[in-house]
């Protein structure tokens, strides 16, 4: 069943904490020359078929190649935003298909340009206008998709920290399935948006061994280079094996290795573990299927070694069985759409013998389904 959106927008009075950007939108009056009243503006479908004079035709196709040129920006202003004008202010209902076709087929730079132009021209946040018109899982998918990757991570992290429970994987995904720079950009976006630091909120809401693991994990700024010390990899693999044997899963050394070593070094350590002991380290961490801490450790390791298979599993578990975990499905698709969604789709096909699009179509419906399919088909 569809989940209420309330968990995502805890303050129903103002939705500004989702929709606003770091800089205040300038209060630009609607330019009189451009504006025609909603009744006079041609309908969106006609707009799409007839490109305005003087603009190259490619700018109109939903699959237009991403180009941050002035020509495209002109197109964004005139065609896309006029689309929004009629969508959001027409009072004749919202054209969800237009929202999907415009936003769903743009990359991060284009979406940012659209938001900026919208705010400059109409004096209101695009996301706020959208949230006033649509709701439910579709709204959540559109919002998460339209935000910048850094803001998206910050919003997801804030939501997770506030209602954290053991076994919640979102913080692990943000910390491990992103590069150092993206994680850091997320932390900065968190500062701007929530006026606190990410590690502050995580430390305040997470307890016990999880806190010992998650706080250093989100504060890490790992070395990004390829340099690896093989002797160190071997000694740390042995150390990890020893700690796991003694079931000291929350040991300081284990946490130190997982939260500070660079990605290349960790991969070398895990490979070394496999070579030395004959099986991957995740196998040894399956001692107790109910232990959430072990699940978290496994998630950390898998996000480093095989992020596409990790997210495939998240998607699979979200779709399988009765009902759908829309939040997880939305999270996987919107956060990985510009990263490695293609690999995730391939992994899904391999594991389930069914394309991910088909599974999503079978399990979701309406505008939410169209949005997810648009993002899945973006490649």
């Amino acid at each position, binding site marked *: 069943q569809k989940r209420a959106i309330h968990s995502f927008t805890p303050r129903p009075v103002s939705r500004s904490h989702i929709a606003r950007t770091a800089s205040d939108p300038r209060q630009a009056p609607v330019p009189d020359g451009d504006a025609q009243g909603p009744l006079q503006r041609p309908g969106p479908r006609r707009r799409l078929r007839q490109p305005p004079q003087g603009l190259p035709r490619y700018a109109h196709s939903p699959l237009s190649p991403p180009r941050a040129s002035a020509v495209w920006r002109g197109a964004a202003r005139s065609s896309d935003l006029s689309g929004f004008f009629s969508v959001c202010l027409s009072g004749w209902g919202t054209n969800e298909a237009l929202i999907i076709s415009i936003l769903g087929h743009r990359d991060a730079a284009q979406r940012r340009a659209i938001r900026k132009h919208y705010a400059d021209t109409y004096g209101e946040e695009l996301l706020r206008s959208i949230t006033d018109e649509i709701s439910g899982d579709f709204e959540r998918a559109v919002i998460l998709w339209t935000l910048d990757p850094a803001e998206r991570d910050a919003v997801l992290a804030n939501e997770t920290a506030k209602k954290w429970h053991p076994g919640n994987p979102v913080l692990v995904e943000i910390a491990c399935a992103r590069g150092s720079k993206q994680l850091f950009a997320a932390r900065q976006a968190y500062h701007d948006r929530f*006026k606190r*630091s990410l590690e502050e909120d995580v430390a305040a809401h997470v307890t016990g061994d999880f806190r010992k693991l998650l706080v250093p994990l989100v*504060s890490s*700024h790992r*070395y990004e280079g390829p340099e690896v010390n093989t002797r160190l990899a071997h000694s740390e693999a042995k150390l990890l094996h020893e700690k796991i044997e003694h079931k000291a899963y929350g040991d300081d050394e284990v946490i130190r290795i997982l939260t*500070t070593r660079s990605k290349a070094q960790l991969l070398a350590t895990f490979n070394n573990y496999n070579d030395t002991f004959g099986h991957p380290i995740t196998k040894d961490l399956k001692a107790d299927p109910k232990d959430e801490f072990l699940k978290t450790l496994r998630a950390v390791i898998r996000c480093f070694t095989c992020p596409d298979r990790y997210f495939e599993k998240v998607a699979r578990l979200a779709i399988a069985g009765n009902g759908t975990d829309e939040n997880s499905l939305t999270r996987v698709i919107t956060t990985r759409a510009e990263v490695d969604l293609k690999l995730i789709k391939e992994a899904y096909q391999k594991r389930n013998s069914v394309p991910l699009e088909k599974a999503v179509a079978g399990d979701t419906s309406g505008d939410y389904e169209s949005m997810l399919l648009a993002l899945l088909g973006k490649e």
Partner: protein
Amino acid sequence: MVAALANWRRQPEKRSGFRKSFPGLFKQHGVIERCEDEYMLHLAAEFSRFKNLMVLWAMHPWERDARLAHHVLHQAHPAAIVVEVACTRSAEELLGARKAYMALFHHSLEEDVAYRAKDKPYCSLLVGLVSAYRYEGPKVSDDTAKAEAKALGAAVKSAGGGKLVENEEVVRILTTRSKPHLVQTFKYYKELHGKYIEEDLGSEEALREAVQCLATPERYFSQVMAAALREGADHHGKEALARVAVTRSDVDMDGIRAAYQEQFGAKLEDAVAGSAHGHFKDALVSLIVGK
């Protein structure tokens, strides 16, 4: 000196006169005046101190902090310097230092800190301090500050002089909260418990330094300078003179001078002038006093 090189050309007697009139460096040894080894070492030390000071001053602050941290970590110096760098720099500067450290040494700073401080009790505190990216704005939640002051008080009581530095709550508060928030928290601590928190943290060096660096950096630095200028200060203590002068001269040197005046009743530049010599002294004093 350089002018003498030209003027005294082909006049060995002038040089000999120079040697005779410089009894510190030269001692009569039979027919010739011979250099004193000790004084040569002393000269080398003075010149190298000056050279180090100038190089340190000229570097980009991020690289400077990265090299300082690396030097400390790989020479087993006391952890105080890492605490100082982590706590007294702004969030952006600390991030820049971490990036510079990665570029220079191909490891992340927290990696090396965690590895070197592996078995020490202050390991988690140090790693947390170094990886912090604190919120820089002035917004402080009074309720949270009060609650955390209570929590700190409870932790101090329950530790009873034991391993307060390993207490998770204390480490969490010190390594994640923003600096204005911590100042407020310590104020509430004084109101609630009647004592300053530094006094209650008596024996735990790392914790006390962290608290001082976060809340009152100027007093901390003036104490470091005083320790360096005292008689019998060791090598690390003396290095502190150059380090503090260079790293803080752009930032809050005036505050440090005021704090020194308040604490020790003398002017910092006079104390430094009394203790150092030559160009090193001039460089230090100009860094401290400025224009």
